[in-house]
């Protein structure tokens, strides 16, 4: 699937993102999520990567659901019938909680969609696709480089936490949740520092290789729109139409 034309990838990702905001029914959003997961596998990504990508969002999800449950206008409180404690009324509303759940679902769809753009393909090809779709080169390069920083950040975190562990920090040993929480600032501050430093140095390195010179840019990659591309694009458009229509009807 790495032969897929990057322009098709861009189109698919844009369609999925629109769906995220357009769909209003939980069933259709779940359907969109299923589509995103199928695409995830189709471009050659693995489940471990999915788990690794979503795991950091756990806390956010819990917070969003709790906050919406608490603040969202609604009048049906959430009741839990617990076997030993009896009925328990939480200060959350059903409407709020379900709104929160919907939000989380949308975020989930987005989170599984975006990596499809850059997986198993060279950034250069994506940049090329974006420029062919009319984006100025600098903007296209900035967007894709920014996307590509996500794995870079992840490896930075690994580097910094390894260095801290090798100097006796126990925060990264197994099962030290509270310590981990306390170690976060110690992780985030250097992370920001290194990222900023790298950004500056990278700017220098890129200009030293004529980035932004007056010349018309060429690319060693050629884009060719083939049958597979046409099929994927058509299928995406049809699915898009179906989901939106179904969403309006139910």
């Amino acid at each position, binding site marked *: 699937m790495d032969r897929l034309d990057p322009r098709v990838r861009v189109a698919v990702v844009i369609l999925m993102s629109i769906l995220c905001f357009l769909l209003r029914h939980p069933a259709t959003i779940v359907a969109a999520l299923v589509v995103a997961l199928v695409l995830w596998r189709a471009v050659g990504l693995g489940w471990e990567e999915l788990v690794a990508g979503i795991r950091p969002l756990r806390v956010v999800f819990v917070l969003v659901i709790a906050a919406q449950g608490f603040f969202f206008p609604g009048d049906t409180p959430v009741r839990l019938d617990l076997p030993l404690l009896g009925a328990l009324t939480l200060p959350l509303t059903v409407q709020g909680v379900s709104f929160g759940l919907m939000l989380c679902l949308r975020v989930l769809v987005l989170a599984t969609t975006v990596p499809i753009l850059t997986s198993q393909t060279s*950034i250069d090809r994506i940049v090329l696709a974006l420029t062919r779709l009319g984006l100025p080169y600098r903007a296209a390069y900035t967007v894709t480089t920014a996307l590509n920083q996500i794995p870079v950040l992840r490896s930075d975190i690994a580097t910094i936490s390894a260095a801290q562990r090798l100097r006796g920090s126990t925060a990264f040993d197994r099962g030290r949740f509270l310590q981990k929480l306390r170690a976060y600032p110690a992780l985030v501050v250097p992370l920001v520092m290194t990222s900023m430093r790298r950004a500056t140095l990278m700017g220098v390195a890129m200009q030293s290789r004529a980035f932004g010179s007056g010349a018309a840019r060429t690319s060693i990659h050629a884009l060719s729109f083939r049958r597979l591309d046409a099929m994927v694009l058509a299928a995406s458009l049809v699915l898009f139409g179906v989901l939106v229509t179904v969403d309006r009807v139910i």
Partner: protein
Amino acid sequence: MQALPEHLPPPAVEFHRLSYRYPGSSRWALHDLSLRILPGEFVAVIGPNGAGKSSLCKSLNGIIPHFEGGALKGSVRVHNRDTRQHEVADLARHVGLVLEDPDAQLFAGTVLDEAAFGGENLGMEPQMIRSSVARALRAVGLRGFDERVPSTLSGGQKQRLAIASLLAMTPSVLVFDEATSQLDAEGAQHLMELVCRLKLRYKLTVVVATHDMALVRAYADRVIALEAGRLVAFDTPERVLSAPAPRFSLHRAPGEGTRPTLDIAADPLIDRCGVDIRSVRCEYPGTVAVDDVSATFSPGEFAGIVGRNGSGKTTLFKAIVGLLRPVAGEVRLAGRPVQSLDSTDLVRRAGYVQQNPDHQLFADTVWKEVAFGPVNLGLDRDEVEDRVRRSLDTVGLRDQANEHPLALGRSDRSLVALASVLALESGVILLDEPTRGHDMAGSRRVMEIACSLRDAGRTIIAIGHDLGLLCEYASRLVVMDSGRIVADGPTGEIIESRTEVLEAAGVLATHRAPSERMAVPFSDDMYDEEQICG
């Protein structure tokens, strides 16, 4: 400056009374520099750390002053273009600058895209880019690496890629700012020979800032010697470096007076802390990096590890400290498997100074950086302070205690990393290319510190590419090739009787005399006649 004789060609580079001051600094980093470099000349830039070598290099493609800011007087002209009147990106067509730290220069998704980036920006024909990229990658020994992600390369491989990315742009002035510091001897030699061929054939102008005097002697036509930003000499290597350096000085005892004394408290655990590597095999997706390696290192021993770029040296270190879990075999530190140690137990046993010091600096002052380990070890305040002060004194950074580690120069950053490990007072100390980026005095200082640690009963293992330097200090030499140990024994024995192994492992440079080099056939058509020089 005297007028140029009539018959000389116009200079490739001309500095005219150049002075430069970094923003926020009161001192001139470069002071009233005037000199001319001719097309087709190989010029080495030498001088102690902080002498202004990097500033000189960065002024050649306009990073100084366009990026750095600061105050610039006088002028730099490259092929008659004033660097102040041209953007860095435009000068890049003529000047290729490779910096020391490869991590900061690689940003593309694959090796191929990385090397093609420059050509694409110049608007070269895709076909032409492909062929010049292929030639450049082959020239630096990275053939077959096209689809690799640059961040997964070894340190030396990254440096090779950074060099190839500039070579592929076929500049007419090539500038290396310590860009070969992590290359193995064979790789550095091949690269220099290539550069010399390009120089003879296409009048490529080469400017190389380096601490490697063997390289300067073997390849430079002229040498720029800097000291505190001033030009102290610009002449042939023979005249600038009067005393020839011996290639190996095996049995010379280093000056005892310079060795720092370390008072480290005796610790029964640490005093018998050795490393026991048993049939270790480490893999990355698609590569076997360390293959069935067994070795033991004992307290009071100083061992050196040498080997080609990518031979698995760093990977072995990562396995020793448990950063990487071997797929087979195990590592024991003071008798316990490393994977079973919690972090406190681990750092009491082993301290690791990484190949790129920036990977282990994360605090906002030098003092806090060094104190991080002792604080984690739960030492009381006085003990922490004491250790930090001693470590900083040992590396000579006491006055910089309140500065930000990342704001220091390269060699000082690596000293901070070293100090932060010294403060742990671990039993085993692993040093991954500890002298890289240091001038001679600095390198010796680092080696002397390692010797003091050894004398204090520590186990020292150091990776290095400067075989001569390593041989002076390490009593045992381990040679790695393609993930395996191919020789392991007393240094003298290996140097004297295992030359063919050293040669096969790519750690011996055999710099030819210039006259012989001229005879090297032009096998690689890196540059196209009409591509060069604009």
